[in-house]
């Protein structure tokens, strides 16, 4: 290195650098540092992508089975003596029979059917067989009979879920060792389940009710579904869209096109960028205090959820919308103003149509992030256990209790039965598909509009 440094101001012409074709030792070190630095960059990318992959992989691994459910198919004779004691065929009378009666019918039919088919496990009691049927099946049978009283006295084919543990056995969650320790399932039942599967009585079927059915209690993971949560999320998204689009566009137009440069405008601007960074849980507190406690709106209602999400996403949407409006070249405004259009006409006729794709995209992306929001919804009671679908919007459904997809993910994840982890992951899959479609919609809309202008 000594030969490199110039020694004094009047040094001879610096021939110091040597040949270009061979790297100096320093150059080798510098190039090694260069390679290392590059490698750090790649490593960072790999770590990020790997984590994403692992996360999606575990969720799909855990969750895909939620869409399949072990289902037994067997004939059931609907005993008139049980379900219609008076023999009147009157639905009002029949509805006095609770699910307990139907459970007995189902149990007896299954025991008899298995015996007839010759599916026998040594030492298995009738109760053990009956217990294999999901606690949910009687309710479904009851609904079916009440909907069609002519079924009374007939023999119908019933698809009934097995209990969650037997289902877990087929999904690999429950093993015989576990079953020995678990009071909710016996090894004998698993033996029987194997037999039934061989005989084709028990099969794994696509489980529509996971998507359509309402939530179910801790003891019936097999029956728990996303129906109410999906409806709740849908209602909230609809309302949030209706609230945010006009307010967001109006506020952005004002700030971009009309607002005078003064203290108030500055205050609003600073306000908006700060609101965009306020933790979402604070909006939950706001919703609880103002909408529920002060204004007396019902908790768990999609309307309240939508109001909270609106306030939460408005700042983001306003920021995106303003960017879209700003992207419209000033020459277009000048052109319109130049032919005598008013400021408002300029904005409505020229600026807004040109900014529309950007605005829509921003709004939908804002909604997509709102759709996954959980924390604030917990505070306004959307985590409550809701088993009734909210009514249609025209019948005040926006005020009925409902759940939301991400909240359902959380509430299932916090239950103790591992079967609910499967449900929770399954719910995430549905949620991600939902978000995927929202994002795809944003992209498609943008493309559409972009071509036109």
């Amino acid at each position: 290195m000594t030969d490199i440094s110039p020694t004094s101001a009047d040094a001879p012409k610096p021939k110091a650098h040597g040949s270009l074709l061979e790297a100096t030792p320093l150059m080798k070190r510098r190039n090694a540092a260069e390679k290392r630095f590059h490698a750090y960059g790649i490593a960072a990318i790999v770590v990020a992508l790997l984590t994403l992959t692992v996360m999606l992989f575990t969720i799909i691994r855990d969750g895909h089975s939620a869409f399949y459910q072990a289902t037994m198919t067997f004939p059931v004779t609907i005993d008139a003596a049980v379900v219609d004691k008076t023999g009147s065929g009157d639905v009002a009378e029949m509805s006095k029979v609770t699910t307990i009666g139907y459970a007995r019918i189902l149990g007896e039919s299954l025991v008899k059917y298995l015996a007839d088919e010759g599916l026998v496990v040594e030492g298995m009691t009738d109760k053990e067989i009956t217990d294999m049927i999901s606690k949910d099946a009687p309710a479904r049978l009851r609904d079916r009979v009440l909907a069609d009283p002519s079924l009374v006295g007939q023999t119908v084919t019933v698809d009934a879920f097995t209990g969650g543990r037997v289902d877990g056995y087929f999904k690999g969650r429950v093993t015989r060792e576990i079953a020995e320790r678990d009071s909710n399932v016996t090894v004998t039942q698993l033996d029987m389940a194997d037999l039934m599967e061989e005989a084709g009585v028990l099969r794994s079927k696509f489980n529509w009710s996971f998507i359509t059915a309402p939530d179910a209690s801790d003891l019936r993971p097999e029956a728990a579904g996303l129906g109410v949560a999906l409806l709740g999320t849908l209602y909230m998204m609809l309302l949030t869209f209706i609230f945010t689009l006009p307010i967001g566009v109006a506020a952005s137009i004002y700030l971009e096109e009309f607002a005078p440069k003064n203290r108030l405008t500055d205050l609003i601007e600073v306000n908006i960028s700060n609101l965009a960074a306020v933790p979402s849980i604070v909006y939950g507190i706001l919703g609880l205090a103002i909408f529920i406690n002060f204004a007396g709106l019902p908790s768990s209602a999609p309307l309240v959820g939508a109001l909270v999400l609106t306030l939460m996403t408005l700042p983001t949407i306003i920021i995106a919308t303003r960017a879209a409006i700003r992207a419209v070249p000033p020459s277009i405004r000048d052109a319109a103003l130049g032919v005598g259009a008013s400021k408002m006409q300029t904005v409505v006729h020229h600026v807004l149509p040109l900014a529309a794709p950007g605005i829509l995209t921003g709004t939908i992306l804002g909604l997509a992030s709102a759709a996954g929001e959980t924390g604030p919804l917990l505070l306004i009671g959307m985590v409550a256990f809701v088993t009734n679908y909210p009514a249609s919007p025209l019948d005040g459904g926006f005020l009925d209790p409902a759940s939301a997809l991400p909240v359902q993910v959380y509430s299932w994840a916090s239950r103790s039965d591992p079967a609910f982890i499967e449900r929770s992951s399954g719910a995430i899959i549905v949620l991600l598909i939902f978000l995927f479609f929202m994002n795809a919609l944003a992209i498609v809309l943008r493309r559409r509009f972009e071509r036109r202008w």
Partner: protein
Amino acid sequence: MSVGILTLIVLALAVVGFFVGRSRAMSSVGGDARKLHSLPGYYGQTVSLFTAVPAFALMALWLFVQPMVIDARIVGQLGPQIAEDATASKLAMEDVSRIASGLDALQAARGMTNEEMRDMRADFSDIRGRLAEVGVALGSEVNPQIFEMAKDYRIMQARGAMMMSVLVLAAAAAGFVVALRRIHGEFRARNVSETFVRWLLIASAGVAILTTIGIVMSLMSETIRFFGMYPIADFFLGFTWNPQFRGGSDLGLIPLLWGTLYISFVSMVVAVPIGIFAAIYTAEYAPPKVRAVVKPVIELIAGIPTVVFGLFALVTVGPFLRDYIAMPLGLGNSGSSVMTAGLVIGVLNIPFISSLTDDIINAVPQSMRDGSYGLGATKSETIRKVVLPAALPGIVGAILLAASRAIGETMIVTMGAGAAAKLGLNPFEAMTTITVKIVSQLTGDIAFDAPETLVAFALGMTLFVITLCLNIFALWIVRKYREQYE
């Protein structure tokens, strides 16, 4: 008349108003649009706006105020003792509204007339049984006083709804007529409707300010109430967090603050280097094609809801850390831990930091890089010694914003950090955060007059102030930085 139908009627009226207003303007000048001051559409627009906007504003106000008025009246009927006791009156109100909604269902199911409903008496008919039939389960027999109040409640609600419908329709009609009568050829419809719209725009922009006021007010009022019940010093300086159902709770902030900061610190240790290096790679090294794929995929992480990360922490990361690191090293056997939550929040923040940093790096002028290359610097030397220092303020801003997000993050800590308030250094131990406690104190059965509930507002206030300071500082830095290169 339901709100939905009322809305539709007003909207329909507004649409009709548009056409009537336009045609009236046209006929006033004998069909020659050139004689009008404004384009015909503006006359229609004016009528529409005058019809719909006041009516909807009135409706929103009414819907907001009516429940408060009715509740106050019902509570007034309970007699002074109960009315003054917040819990008791709240419970009574819940009973009243539940019975009332049961009665609604009953009337719908049985097709009863209003007279029949009015004659129903709690002490004669089996109200509880009847309500159970329509799916409204009551805990005890119905108290006749409460039952009468429920009937009153229904009547008041019905009257309120009736009055609202009448007033809203009247407002719409009045707006319609007033606007229509002002229309003539000289009427400056464009100016009037534009001024009207302008006020609507200003009101929309004002929502941002209202939101902030709402946040501050709702946090403040309950926080002040909390400090009326619980000493302020014990909250801010207390080392124990131990809420009790029966009072006598210790509600010290410090363990929660510690957990929050510790977890945020771990998350930043993960997110900052990975985020910055990822940004350096995408902005400086990646060939365009790789960049076009990698950047959106990393940003995909930002679009995944936090509850998904929470489940990942709960099901995958927590057990992994417990089984392969904490237990072998004897550092504890808890799946939820500072490490679990910190790592996962870190991953969540990677795209946040990397995309902001990427933007900031791209804003550094190319001439700066050329200068460095021209002197014979390698790429990494240029990045480390020229680009990053030039981008530093912006990157610091991004990091502060990410820190504020980590501090305010709720779902991942709720599912991955644990619930035990502890002051410890072992990162494999469960600790808890401010946000976790806000959620746990404000979900389930809550009583708004107990310090155990109200403390959540004080926690919220603390969180709000901390994050606000960080955000203001960060946004200020970022803004300063932008100005530098504009």
